[in-house]
């Protein structure tokens, strides 16, 4: 399939999936016990007040009609008003998404870097003791999820050796105005490096916690692919010609090993996004993951729906991006 075909196919499937998820979440949330309006205003409210609020939040009328109305507005980017925050869902998402994007990208970059280093070093070490150690360490990182790493970091670098701040995204005493919510990018672009350093210090622990399990997976798969590539004839030829071992791996084997790793990284990157939910919670990091837990606990229907669609959209974009990247690195697929 050509690149355009891949993307088209993905997009159509994705759109159907997204619609299905939206519908299921919409109806499930509404058939369960627990009235958000009653939770919101307490027992003293008059029935007419409750009815008026129902209309205000779009919770009146038959379910199918509610869904159609919601879908129609969602298509133009209007996800309604959050019940607990009394703000439009879209603006809440806009406030919180940049924090998660910065976190996820840093974690992904770190995971690729770490995983790549582990694979290359392991291959260089060959079958010697070094590679046994690398594999054993990688095994531990593979077994423990980001949730546990985050908690270990809280104890190790937040309490025992307090290297990094434990909560939040930026020191509240740094009262600096920002134009966007991309705090890291904006402070870097505008040259405020001390501010950027502060933001980065807050990001270190959640980023590493998210990156470690992913790095372990990348390390293992890339290692295997490199091992397979290293016994090919073209490597033997390059070796006979006198190419050094590190160059052999980096400029010859890596290029052929990267395809399968890339496809897998895409799948794993969606896990990373899922992981932000709980990791952000642990570090009180103000992203959409933390927001999602809060919305679920408060039964904030419009916000939950907006978040579900937002997460769905992110996954779809990641998948399309990965498909394109796989096609880009593999010349065989390019002229399909």
């Amino acid at each position, binding site marked *: 399939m050509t690149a355009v075909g891949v993307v088209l196919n993905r997009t159509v499937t*994705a759109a159907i*999936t997204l619609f*299905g*998820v939206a519908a299921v*979440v919409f109806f*499930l*949330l509404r058939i*369960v*016990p*627990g009235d958000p309006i009653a939770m919101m205003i307490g027992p003293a409210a008059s029935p007419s007040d409750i009815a008026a609020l129902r209309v205000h939040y779009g919770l009146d009328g038959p379910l199918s009609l509610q869904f159609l109305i919601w879908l129609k507005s969602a298509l133009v980017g209007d996800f309604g008003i959050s019940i607990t925050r009394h703000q439009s869902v879209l603006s809440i998402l806009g406030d919180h998404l940049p924090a998660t994007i910065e976190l996820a990208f840093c974690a992904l970059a770190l995971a690729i870097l770490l995983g790549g280093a582990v694979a290359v070093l392991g291959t260089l070490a060959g079958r010697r003791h070094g590679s046994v150690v690398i594999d054993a360490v990688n095994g*531990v990182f593979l*077994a*423990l*999820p980001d*949730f*546990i790493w985050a*908690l*270990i970091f*809280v*104890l190790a670098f*937040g*309490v*025992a050796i307090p290297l990094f701040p*434990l909560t939040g995204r930026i020191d509240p005493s740094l009262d600096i105005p920002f134009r966007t919510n991309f705090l890291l990018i904006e402070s870097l672009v505008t040259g405020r490096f001390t501010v950027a350093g502060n933001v980065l210090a807050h990001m270190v622990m959640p980023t590493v916690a998210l990156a470690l399990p992913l790095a372990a997976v990348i390390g293992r798969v890339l290692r295997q692919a490199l091992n397979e590539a290293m016994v090919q004839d073209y490597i033997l030829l390059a070796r006979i010609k006198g190419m050094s071992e590190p160059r052999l791996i980096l400029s010859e084997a890596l290029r052929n090993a990267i395809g399968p790793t890339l496809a897998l990284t895409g799948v794993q990157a*969606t*896990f990373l*996004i*899922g*992981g932000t*939910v*709980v990791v952000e*919670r*642990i570090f009180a990091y103000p992203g959409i993951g933390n927001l*999602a*837990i809060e919305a*679920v*606990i408060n*039964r904030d229907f419009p916000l*939950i729906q907006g978040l*579900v669609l937002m*997460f*769905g959209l992110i*996954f779809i974009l990641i*998948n399309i991006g990965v498909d394109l990247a796989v096609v880009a690195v593999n010349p065989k697929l390019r002229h399909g």
Partner: protein
Amino acid sequence: MAEAALVKPLDDPRGERVPVIRRLLRDRKVVVAGGFILFLAILAIFAPLIVPIDPLAQDLSNAEAPPYGFTGAVPDFLLGTDDLGRDVLSRVIFGARIALTVAFVAATLAAALGTTLGLAAGWYGRWIDTIISRLVDIWMAFPAVLLSILLVAILGSGLHSVIAAIVVIDWTRFCRVVRAETMAQARMDYVTAARAIGFRRGAILLKEILPNIVPVLIALLTLEMGIAVIVEAILSFVGLSVSSDTPTWGGMIAQGRQIVHESWWVMSVPLLMLCATVIAFNQLGDGLNRALDPMLRR
């Protein structure tokens, strides 16, 4: 079939058949991991008889006492107390009950559901396979953590909801593997032979193919138990698992996270148990895989 002939029978290097149990007992990792889980299970089952102090009893005069050996430790509380003066050791032992219950029940149910659908998809093919496979694809397109939090929010918190959420999410792991295994087995000669003799399709599936999938299934089940323990911990950490009266590792971690600067042990002890349990299930699963799967054996 040629492939099947190439697979060496389950022999040891001297050529004798070694029973699976003995092969497992030779694997040091499996023995340690299995022993740990067995020990934990005994602790959990007999928790009310073992614990030194009622896990819910509050002793405010001894609140936030550090573990044994640290300055200010109270001899009665080996692993210290939390901010309400409750015994951390007793609570961690009681937390094992929830963790292991969820691990065994949720993983088994997820395996049952996933295996049933996987067998059906792999054996009957056609539209059954199309529907089930598409369902798996859609299911896996969504992040498990978010989905489980959403599900528990919909179902209401509690042990049943946690188990239901894990089953509803993780059946896909079993379904995919069982489907692929069933398709591979269906191409084997013994299946053709069974059909030639005139066995009915359903009978071949259950009596011939299923027993050959069981080894893979057991290893997968063990790995799933480790996952279930983590999901339960996450849900109780977030406050969506059982009620806060029941001690859980995740709940203790969440509580300890609040007072981590004053009393680090409230969070560390359950976290340590969680890590050990997850690693043990992982090692056991890998070991079972090595011992049961002839293709993986060198």
